[in-house]
C-alpha cells in the first residue's frame, strides 16, 4: 500500500469566502487519520472531493495523491478509494453475496471462484451462510459488517469513512470499531475518518481538527504526520 497525500487543499464558498486551508497532510499505509470539527466546517466536502462526488456549493482546489498517482483528476471509479457512510447502503435489490460480488474485482474469474472468495470473506467476519440472505433481514451490526466487507473486497488503495459508527448502539459500536480497525491495520490501508465522537479515534491516531472561519488545523497523536497549515 502507498501513502495518501493531500496537497494544498483549499475550500472556498461560491461567494468567494474561504472555508478551509490551504491544508496538506499525509496518511501512511494502515494509518487512520481522524477529521473532526463542528458541522459546516467542510469535513464532508473534503470527503466528497476525495471520492469525486459533485459538490455544487463549493470551489475546491488541491491535489490528492496515492503514491505517485494523482487521483483527484480521475473519475470516481478509477480512483480505487473506498467509502463507508453512516448508513450501510447495501444494495437492497441484491442479496448479501451479490453485494460483495459487485465489489469484487473482475480479475477473480469464474462464478465458482468468485463465490468461494466471497464466502471466505463472509466466514472470516463470522457471517458464513449469509450469502443468499436478503440484506433487509440482517441486524444492524451484520449490515454494518457486510458494508465494510464490501468496501474492502474491492481492494481499495485508501478508505474514507463518514461517521460510520454513529448509527450503531454503544456495544455494537465498540465491536464494529475494532472490527474495522483490525482490518485496516491488516491490509495497511490509509484511512480518513470523519467523526463527531472522540471515542472513535483509534488509539494513538492522528487528529485534524477543523475550525470555523478559514480553518485552523491542529494535530494530536504520537507519530509525526507532516502537516502544514
Amino acid at each position, binding site marked *: 500500500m502507498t501513502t495518501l497525500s493531500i496537497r494544498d487543499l483549499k475550500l472556498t464558498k461560491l461567494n468567494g469566502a474561504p472555508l478551509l486551508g490551504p491544508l496538506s497532510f499525509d496518511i501512511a499505509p494502515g494509518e487512520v487519520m481522524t477529521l473532526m470539527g463542528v458541522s459546516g466546517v467542510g469535513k464532508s466536502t473534503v470527503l466528497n472531493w476525495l471520492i469525486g462526488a459533485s459538490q455544487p456549493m463549493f470551489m475546491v482546489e488541491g491535489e490528492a495523491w496515492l503514491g505517485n498517482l494523482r487521483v483527484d483528476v480521475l*473519475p470516481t*471509479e478509477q480512483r480505487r478509494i473506498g467509502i463507508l457512510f453512516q448508513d450501510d447502503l447495501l*444494495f*437492497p*435489490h441484491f442479496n448479501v453475496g451479490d453485494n460483495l460480488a459487485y*465489489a469484487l474485482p473482475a480479475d477473480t474469474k469464474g462464478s465458482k471462484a468468485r463465490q468461494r472468495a466471497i464466502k471466505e470473506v463472509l466466514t472470516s467476519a463470522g457471517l458464513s451462510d449469509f450469502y443468499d440472505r436478503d*440484506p433487509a433481514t440482517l441486524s444492524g451490526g451484520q449490515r454494518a459488517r457486510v458494508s465494510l466487507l464490501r*468496501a474492502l473486497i474491492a481492494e481499495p488503495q485508501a478508505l474514507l469513512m463518514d461517521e460510520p459508527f454513529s448509527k450503531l448502539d454503544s456495544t455494537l459500536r465498540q465491536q464494529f470499531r475494532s472490527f474495522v480497525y483490525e482490518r485496516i491495520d491488516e491490509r495497511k490501508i490509509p484511512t480518513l475518518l470523519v467523526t463527531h465522537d472522540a471515542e472513535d479515534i483509534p488509539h494513538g491516531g492522528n487528529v485534524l481538527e477543523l475550525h470555523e472561519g478559514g480553518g485552523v488545523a491542529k494535530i494530536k497523536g504520537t507519530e509525526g504526520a507532516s502537516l502544514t497549515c
Partner: protein
Amino acid sequence: MLKRTLPSLPACLAMLGIALTLAPLIPGLLWVLAPALNVDTWQALVQDNQFASALLSTLGSAVGSTLLALVCASLVTVMLYPGRGWLLVQRQLPVFLAFPHIAFAIGIAFLIAPSGWLARGLANLLEWSSPPQWISIRDPYAISLTLTMAIKETWFLLWIMATLLGEQAISRQITLANSLGYSRAQVWVSALFPQLLPRMGWPLVAVLAYSLSVVDMAVILGPSTPPTLAVLSWQWLTDPNEMTQAKGAAAALCLMLLLGLLILAGRGIWWGIKTLYKNPSGVRQRGLAFKSRRLFGLSVFVPGWLSLAILLLWSVAGGWFFPRLFPASLSLKSFSNADFEPMFTALWLGAATVMIALPLTLAWLEWGSRKHHGWLYAPLILPSLPIAAAQYHVLLAINLDSTAVGVIWSHLTWTFPYMLLVLVGPYYSFDTRYLCTAQALGHSRFSACLSIKWPMLIRPILAAMAVGFAVSVAQYLPTLFSGGGRFATVTTEAVALSAGGNRRVLAVQSLLQTALPLCAFMLAIGLTAWYARNRQGLK
C-alpha cells in the same frame, strides 16, 4: 476546481429526447399560432357570441374540477393514511388510473343520461313510464363535465400522493407528531401537506392544463351550444375558412394565457398560506372522532365502479328497455361481432412509443440538466390541440404524415414528459450515496446505473412505463391528425361511436380501451412484486 468527465454518448442521448420530441414543435406551433398574432383576430374572437359563455364554462369546469380533485384527494389521504383503508385505496387505484377518461365519461353518460341507470332507478321508485326530460349530460353549465373530470383527476392525485408517501417515512412523522399531542387532521395540515403539496405542483398543473384543454371528454359530456373554449377552438381550427382558423388559433392562445394566470394565482395563494402559517402556535386541536372514515374515503371509487359496471352490462345486454334496471337477456353477441383491429393498433403503437420513450427519459434524468428541466413539461401544460396541429404540419413537411413512425412520434410528445413527470420525484430523491458507493467500488457511472440505480428504481420505472403506455393509448387528437385518419385505435373509435346511438358497440370499444392500460398497470405491479419477491428493502 474539480473537473467532471461526462460520458459523451449518454449526454447526447439526454438531449436526443428533446431534439426528437420537442424541438420540431416550435416551428410547427409558430405556423399554427401565427394567425392569432393579429388585433383583428382577437377582436373577432371577443365579439363572437359564443366566446363569453365558452370561456366561462371552460374556467368553471377547469378550476372547479382541479380544486375539487385536490380537496377530495387530500381528504381521502387524511382520512385513510396510514391504515388499512389506505391499502384498499392503493389496491383499487391502478384499476381507475388505467380507466381511460373517455371510457369513464361514456360510462358516466350511460349512468346519468335521461334513460340511464339513475333515471331507471328513480323511475322504478316513482313509477315513471318514460325517461325524464332532464338535461344531465351536455348541460349548459358543464356541471357533469366538471364533476366527471374531478372524480377522474382525484384518482390521479391520489396516486401521486401514494408515490410521495411511499418513498418517505411519513408514517413515522405522523406517529411523532401524534406523540406531541397533535390530532391526525392537524398533523396533516401542519406537517405533511406543507411537505407534499410543493412536490405535487407539476402534477396539479398537468391536471389543470388537461381540464382546460380537454376536447374528447368535453365532446361527450360538455355543453354543446356553445361548447367549451377548447372544443370551440378545435372546431374553428379545422374549419376551411381562414378567418375562422385564425380565431381558433387565438382561442388556443387564450387557453395558454388562462393557464398561466391560473398558475400564478395558485402560486400566490400558496405563498400567502405559507406566510400566514409560519409560526406554529403550539395549539393542539381536538381530533374529530369520525367513525366511518374508511367508508367515506373509499366512496371516491363508487362512480368508477358504477361506470365500469354499466359499461360491462351494456356490452353483454340483449334487450334492455326503459325503465328496467337490468337487461332482459344477456348475450356475448356484441363481443363476437366486435372489431378488435383498433385494440391491436393501439397496443403496438403504445408499446413502440414506450420502448422509445424509456431510454430517452432515463438518459435525461441521469445526464440532463436538473435545474432547467421545467420546460420539458411544456406539452402537458399546453392545449393539446395546437400541438397536434403543429405535429401534423411538421410531418407533412418531412413526408411522414399518415405513417406509423409519424403517429408514434406524435405520441412521444406526451408520453416522454408524462414518464418524466412520474419518474422525476423518485429519481431525484434517490440516495446518491448508492451511486457513489458503486463508483467507489470501481464501476463506471453507466454500469452503476444499469446494475444499481435503475434496478433499485424498478417500481417507479415500471409505473412510468405503464403510465406512458396508458397515455399513448388515450391519445385522440394526435392519432387523428398525424395518422391522417388511417390509424383507428380504441380511443378514436370510442369517441367516433359516442355520437351514434349504438350503446352496445360503444360499450365494447370503451371496455377494450379500458382493458389495454389496465393490463399495463397490472403487469407493472406484477413485475415489481416478482422482482422484489425476496427483497424486503425494495418493498
